[in-house]
């Protein structure tokens, strides 16, 4: 039987499959269930300092072919009220990675510190939300700011730090280099996009613009994983459009140490984690490797 265990960002995972931030991860009971049903780890919804309702509905557009557009708008209860959810999630005895967003290095540092106190196994810096002003992508496209945030967080916490980057930039590689102190780089967040309803003659999302995710963005994610791994050699976690075992292997061959799954969880249900684990073991046999981690970087 194939060994599915991997090391990613210095964390040992029982399989390479992590729940991506923003999908089924604002309620502690849901995270607990996703872990119990087969995810190796979960990343929480991105949490900020203060409570935010996010945007009005519609906040998602269900697109054809396994794609999705969303502008949830970083709704979250605020860090103070999130400890309880993490506590519930931790009952599954698997790593919970706390995702955070802020508007200054200090704020990221504070949020990360709270996540560490809550028992998070690592902290993921959302430097890439494409549809909220004053955070996310706005900070994440400036390499100096990114470096300042990563360093501030590294100084504040002892748990691994993951930097989640955006594909909506001209200079991804430069930004990746500015994360040299991070334990891993997570790519990609969603690609900025929009959907229009021709009967209503209106953009569908209440925020007009949102982020594209799902099957189609896999090819963009693969490119970033490959390019960043090849050029920087940093640990990279792949995310974007993964919905089956082949996709996972493609990302691992491109250099990812583990992957995150978002949109496909909505599409195929929480059972996708155990289903992919099962298929991954068979696929590894077909590819004649004993350990899934042997495939890491095979296409580099």
């Amino acid at each position, binding site marked *: 039987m194939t060994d599915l265990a991997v090391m990613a960002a210095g964390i040992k995972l029982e399989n390479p499959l992590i729940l991506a931030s923003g*999908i*089924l*991860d*604002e*309620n502690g*009971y*849901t995270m*607990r*269930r*996703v872990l*119990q049903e087969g995810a190796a780890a979960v990343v929480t*919804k991105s949490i900020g300092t203060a*409570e*935010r*309702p*996010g945007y*009005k*509905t*519609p*906040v*998602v*557009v*269900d*697109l054809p072919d396994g794609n*999705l557009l*969303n502008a*949830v708008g970083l*709704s*979250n*209860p*605020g860090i103070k*009220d999130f400890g*309880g*959810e993490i506590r519930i999630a931790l009952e599954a005895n698997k790593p919970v990675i706390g995702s955070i967003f802020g508007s200054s290095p200090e704020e990221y540092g504070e949020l990360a510190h709270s996540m560490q106190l809550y028992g998070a196994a690592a902290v993921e810096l959302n430097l890439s939300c494409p549809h909220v002003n004053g955070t996310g992508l706005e900070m994440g496209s400036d390499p100096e700011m990114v470096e300042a945030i990563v360093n501030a967080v590294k100084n504040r916490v002892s748990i691994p730090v993951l930097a989640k980057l955006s594909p909506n930039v001209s200079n991804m590689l430069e930004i990746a280099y500015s994360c040299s102190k991070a334990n891993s780089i997570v790519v990609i967040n969603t690609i900025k996009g929009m*959907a229009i*309803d*021709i*009967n*209503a003659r*209106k953009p*569908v999302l*209440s925020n007009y613009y949102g982020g594209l995710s799902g099957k189609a963005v896999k090819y963009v994610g693969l490119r970033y994983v490959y390019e960043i791994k090849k050029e920087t050699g940093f640990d990279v976690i792949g995310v974007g459009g993964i919905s089956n075992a082949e996709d996972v292997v493609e990302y691992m061959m491109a250099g990812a140490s583990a992957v995150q799954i978002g*949109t496909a*969880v*909505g599409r195929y*249900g929480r059972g996708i984690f155990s289903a992919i684990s099962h298929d991954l073991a068979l696929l590894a046999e077909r590819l004649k490797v004993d350990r899934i981690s042997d495939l890491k970087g095979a296409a580099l």
Partner: protein
Amino acid sequence: MSHSAVEVLWSRNESPTVKTLAFKWDQEVLPGQFVMVWTPGIGEIPMSLSSLGEIKTITVKDFGPPSAAIISTNPGNKLYIRGPYGNHFTRTDGKKLVIGAGSGMASLAPLVDKNTYGIISAREKSEIILTGNFDQGKVMVTTDDGSMGFKGNTIEALKVFDAKVDMIYVCGPEKMLFAVYNYLKDRGIRAEFSLERSMKCGIGICDSCSIDGFQLCRDGPVFSIDQLGSMKEFGVSRLTYSGKRIQM
């Protein structure tokens, strides 16, 4: 095209604050399933279908801006809907009881047949809706203030309801569901409950509708009495639109 644009054929006031809107939608829908109804510029909210024939209806209570916008859609104008979503009530040929409070009656309406009893509750007379769906003498009404039917709540009505039924269907505010659940749990009667939560996506992505790790929009909104028995959040707490946990 994300939503189907369906034309409102007619609408009917059910009470001063509740209105039924009818439209043609060529789509099979099961009792208990819901659609997301979008009013451009205002918002999108989940709505059960209150009749499921070729002409379908939704029965909407005027609550906040999204529901008010739906209610004000005049015949000839369009509703923008997507779905149907969610699981559904298990139909049965036997004798059944539906227990509905407020707009909760909407999702129960398609279940009502000759063999169905009803307990309908509301705060006061004007909020009692859809009694006409039942056969004469098969529906019991309760109001908090006694302005119509029996003065009291659902549980008190349930206590005096003595017919043996094969299945009980329940929909309404969670407080009421929880009370009914507690009353029924050791009585060995089959029962299904349709729950409500904030629902942002309707497609199992956003977690806003979850209860004990189940997504109301996919795994629900209908849960059996046994499923509810194992839930720690049922009747206890839920997340707000922002994701903050509040007590019920």
